[in-house]
């Protein structure tokens, strides 16, 4: 959604930015089925808000290319892709074994147009990534992937864990219900700042899952839109080519609010709170404002717990910084963290180093939360 550059004269931070926005007008028509919380219609609602706040007009807006079979097969297994292509709501009863094998049917249901929906959003993401690549200074840049969705990015983490294309680090930050803006930023900024300092990525991908917002149908955090957007603002201020992608978000009026506001942040534009009348205005009653106050739910993250998490992670990052090639003998920090409850949620930061030097097989997955790397330069 965004690439570095120069353009818009206005902006509170005074820095000019060129923003590319990938949108397919078909995307809002896909329907997961009645009762399912994922509603692609939210993206169309976002689009209408962007137009009526005058933001679309100040971006380069592109209809993405559809990802083809061979594109998807660059990562996914051939049989998975051909399964997605062939499965329909009518034939799924005959494919129970395949459905179970590929974990399709409940969270990710079979619906009409499933495959073309996959082609659409994959095309958008890859398009943004290609655009980002054009902004990179060097060929082998490190990429930082940050995920602020309330749900852990299992797929992404596993994808990098099993890749044979270089070194990979993963950092997961365990958080409890009810986290508010201040608590969240008290971790996000120092940790991301340290990550940037240690790894100096050439590009950043920020997954902006909006289910970490207050009042989400599935989520249980208590972030306001401004609090959520602070992550975007912060990553943007680091002046590295930035790709923003969507993600979760199941109270669709809040998703549209959030992503519209965050597009404003990407452009360096503040939006007035009184929402302009537009096609989906009635979704935003009774106040019809852009911002909504968080709830009074209890923040189960104590100051002490947050301070401890921050201190341990910053310490771990410092050790990596000063001795990146030394094999660690100490136990990684997460094994000493308090026992993780089942209902804790994660804020994720990941980074990937494209290097042919180090052995990925040395990577160990500890306690299911923080993965640490035991680095050993491979003899070349």
């Amino acid at each position, binding site marked *: 959604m965004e690439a570095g550059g120069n353009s818009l*004269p*206005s902006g509170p931070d005074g820095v000019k930015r060129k923003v590319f926005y*990938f*949108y397919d*007008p078909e995307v*809002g*028509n896909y*329907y997961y*089925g*009645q*009762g*399912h*919380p994922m509603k692609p*219609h939210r993206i*169309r609602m976002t689009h*209408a808000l962007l*137009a009526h*706040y*005058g*933001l679309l*007009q*100040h971006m*380069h*807006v*592109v*209809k*993405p*290319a559809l990802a083809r079979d061979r594109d998807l097969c660059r990562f996914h297994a051939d049989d998975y892709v051909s399964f997605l292509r062939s499965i329909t709501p009518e034939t799924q009863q005959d494919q129970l074994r395949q459905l179970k094998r590929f974990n399709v049917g*409940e*969270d990710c249901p079979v619906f*009409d147009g499933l495959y073309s929906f996959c082609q659409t959003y994959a*095309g958008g993401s890859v*398009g943004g990534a*290609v*655009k980002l690549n054009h902004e990179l200074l060097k060929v082998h840049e490190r990429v930082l992937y940050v995920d602020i969705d309330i749900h852990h990015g*299992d797929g992404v983490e596993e994808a990098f864990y099993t890749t044979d294309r270089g070194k990979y680090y993963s950092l997961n930050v365990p958080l409890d219900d009810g986290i508010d803006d201040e608590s969240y930023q008290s971790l996000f900024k120092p940790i991301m700042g340290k990550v940037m300092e240690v790894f100096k990525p050439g590009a950043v991908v920020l997954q902006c899952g909006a289910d970490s917002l*207050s*009042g989400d*149908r*599935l989520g249980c955090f208590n972030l306001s839109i401004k609090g959520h957007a602070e992550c975007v603002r912060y990553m943007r201020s680091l002046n590295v080519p930035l790709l923003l992608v969507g993600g979760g978000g*199941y109270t*669709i009026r809040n998703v549209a609010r959030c992503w519209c506001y965050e597009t404003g942040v990407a452009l360096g*534009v503040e*939006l007035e*709170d*009184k929402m*302009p*009348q*537009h*096609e*989906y*205005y*009635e*979704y935003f*009653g*009774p106040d019809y404002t*852009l911002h909504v106050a968080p*709830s*009074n*739910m209890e923040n189960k993250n104590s100051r002490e717990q947050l301070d401890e998490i921050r201190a341990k992670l910053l310490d771990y990052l410092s050790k990596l910084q000063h001795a990146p090639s030394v094999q660690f003998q100490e136990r990684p920090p997460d094994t000493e963290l308090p026992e993780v409850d089942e209902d804790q949620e994660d804020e994720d930061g990941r980074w990937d180093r494209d290097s042919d030097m180090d052995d990925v097989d040395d990577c160990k997955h500890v306690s299911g939360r923080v993965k640490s790397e035991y680095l050993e330069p491979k003899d070349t």
Partner: protein
Amino acid sequence: MLKPRKDKKPTPVDWVEFITDENHKLAIPCGSRFQVDLSDWTGPPHEGYDESSTSRWLGTKVWPIEDAHSDTNVDLIGKGRSDSCTCPSPGSIECVKHHVNDKKVQLQSDLDSAFGKWRFNEMGEGVSDIWSSEEQKRFDCIVKMNPASEGKSFLKPAMECFRTQRETILSYYFNVYVPRCMSNKARAGSRIVDSDDDEEGEDSKSSQKRSRADDSISRKAKYARNRYLTGIR
């Protein structure tokens, strides 16, 4: 044809032995006299060549376009609605419809061809023109009789009743039905107006009674939270 240098050792007859024999260093001619004259490539990039496949990924440009009013005042970026209006009943359904229509006309002027490409003509209350008021009431009934909380879906019954495509039904549902329900609830004094109320079969009275704190742990939220994205297979 290259010739090996002559030396004291006899020429091996075995080819493998020959080429691995260090004493027989082949003279490879190099230097400007031995370079081929290769003209510059002027044809299109080979299919699969990185650059052409890269340009495919950049998609189809929709905005900016030349003829549009690209002189859209920079001061209007981020502007919300006016504090007041001259409508007889400000904030009413009619007032909103009036302003939404005005904004739509303005947007069409601003966006030119992009307005249609982005399907703004298929968004909003205007979609209701496809059906008469009687048909619209019939649709309302079908949705109410098929709540998600009972494992039902309005989609197929509506498609059968109206003998139309699913796209038409869904378009009406998201552009007309849901916003109208929410509009009614908002004007009935409900503090939390949720588009998912219909799917769970809730009525507006229980929405009104619920406090803000309770909403975050409301029955419908608990149901959804225990069913989707739990990480449990």
